[in-house]
């Protein structure tokens, strides 16, 4: 589904990603962990096409297409979704209005009929119910004045409505209370299917207690330096990243 080869990317002329390789197959859930500043969010931004992130080498292929050729909105319409580490506040744009515009843009792209407001509200209510989210977020401006946890929930809610093929969750579990964490896990697990893939960027094992990943990767210094099974995440939680520097890559097989 997603194949990243030898990806090099710069921000403001500074190289952040330095030869990153990653392959995520359909139906798989991968976790990416790694120290602060290692390039995890940068990877998400490059995959979604944010301006200012320049790819200098390598390729990103998604469902057989060159993803880097597409605009951010085309990528979204093709099913790529990023739950932002820091969701943006957009005063004056109603959350429901925004999400309907987004869904309809995607439906239009796929040649499907646009949803009128009645059909859309029905869909929205269903999603809110399964995620146990109250509907007060609907009436407010996008993320405006939302608490940290509410913003993260809103990202998951958007994901549930848009039903992406490839979802990247950038620290969506950070700063969440137990209930909100369940909401996130619920959102991911409900979306899990043989034709979708997910990448969870996280610093903590606790999200992975709810969502069993197929693969765990360690991103450091702009590259994937270790990969393994779910056991790798537990080991990182206990021991941190220092052991990786001491030639730990060889041990990874053991850890998984």
């Amino acid at each position, binding site marked *: 589904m997603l194949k990243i080869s030898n990806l090099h990317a710069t921000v403001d002329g500074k190289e952040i990603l330095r030869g990153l390789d990653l392959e995520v197959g359909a139906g798989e859930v991968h976790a990416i962990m790694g120290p602060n500043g290692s390039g995890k969010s940068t990877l998400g931004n490059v995959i*979604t096409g944010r301006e200012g992130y320049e790819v200098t080498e390598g390729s990103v292929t998604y469902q057989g297409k060159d993803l880097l050729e597409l605009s951010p*909105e085309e990528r*979204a319409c093709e099913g790529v979704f990023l739950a932002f580490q820091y969701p943006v506040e957009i005063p*004056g744009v109603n959350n429901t209005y925004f999400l309907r515009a*987004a869904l309809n843009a995607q439906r239009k792209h796929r040649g499907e009929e646009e949803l009128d407001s009645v059909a859309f509200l029905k869909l929205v209510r269903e999603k809110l119910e399964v995620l146990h989210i109250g509907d007060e977020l609907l009436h407010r401006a996008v993320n405006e004045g939302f608490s940290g946890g509410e913003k993260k929930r809103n990202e998951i809610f958007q994901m549930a409505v848009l039903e992406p093929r490839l979802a990247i969750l950038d620290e969506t579990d950070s700063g969440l209370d137990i209930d909100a964490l369940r909401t996130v896990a619920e959102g991911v697990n409900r979306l899990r299917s043989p034709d979708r893939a997910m990448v969870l960027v996280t610093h903590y094992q606790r999200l992975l207690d709810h969502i069993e990943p197929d693969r765990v990767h360690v991103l450091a210094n702009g590259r994937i330096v270790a990969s393994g099974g779910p056991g790798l995440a537990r080991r990182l939680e206990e021991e941190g990243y220092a052991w990786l520097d001491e030639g730990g890559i060889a041990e990874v097989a053991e850890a998984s």
Partner: protein
Amino acid sequence: MNAPATTLAQRIGEQLAREPAENGLPRWARELAARDRARFLDHGLPHRRLEAWKYTPLDARPAPGEAQSPVDGFDAGEGVLVRLVNGAPQELPAGLPEGVRLRTIADELAEAPEDLRAALESIDTESPADVMTALNNADLGGGLVLRVARDVDAGQLVLCWRDTAQAPALANARVLVWLEEGARLDLVEDFAPGRALNVVQQFHLAPGSRLRHARLQAGLDASWLVTRTEVSQAGHSVFEQASLDIGDGLARHDLGVRLAGSGAACTALGAYLPGGEAHVDHHLDVRHEATDCHSTQTFRGVLQDRGRAVFNGRVHVLPGADGSEAHQSNKNLLLSHDAEVDTKPELVIEADEVVASHGATVGALDDKAVFYLRSRGIGEPEARRMLTGAFCREVIEAIGIDAARDAFLARLESHLEVRP
């Protein structure tokens, strides 16, 4: 034979000489008109050496266009509609509620009530900066007078201003409103000038009265709309003004408010979106003269193409106006390199225990927000439109007159469709 007129000022001068407006007016009004005609001929149109007009020098503008206005206009709904063609009121509606009197200024002048005289003479026109008011006085006799009696709710009055091919080079009109104690009025104005229109308005709010004033300006290419609105507010009166400027021509709005009685409140909201060659200039002058008055001005500008905007907001809290509260905000989105905005908020506080805030910004759309919307599948033009609309909607949504708010929001939406 006279040489043919070359400048607009000369054409206006000829126009004034051709149609002496003084006919049938009381003597004081004839004198006022004659004095101010001389002032206009002396000063000419406002020029850039006048501080108040330096960004909007009318003398240096291309002469106003000669387009005809579209006929359609604001749907008055249950309100009363008056059409003003080339600045002149057409048939006045019959059957107004008891306690509401609407007449032409010519009819009122014939009776020459003292308050009318005091009002007309109250604006000092000696300075060249006030020459557009002098010009308005010189052409006295056109316009409306509305009086609402004590505790009467006059409902909604819509003034629909339109020009035809017969419009003079520049038309003058006057609108005077008196609200007695506790009276209420919603005044909606729909301006779509094709040429040049110079309107002076004077609103008198007695204690406890409320005037809500919503103004749409959708002038045609190269048209001019010059308005001056002078409001005097007695104790606990409320004045709420909102304007939306989406025209293709020039608009200059002067708003002067005197908070003269304790507890009076005034709000001015505005959104302006000049694109193409359009030009919008707001000059505000709010004076807190009494204790415990509130004033708020919130203005949002979106500038595209070679659009030009000026915001000059002066709030003056005079000595003794203790307990005043004054807030002013002007934010602008500059969406083109060729557009320009000059903003100057000005707060002068000479009283005690005053709560005040003011701020002005000029910026671009938030890239992070644009990307957030695009990352969800919304195309870039649509994303920009959503953000631009949101920026202006904030003020339009605050309009208290329901019908005006809905109509203005719809106009804003369709304006953004055409000009993302």
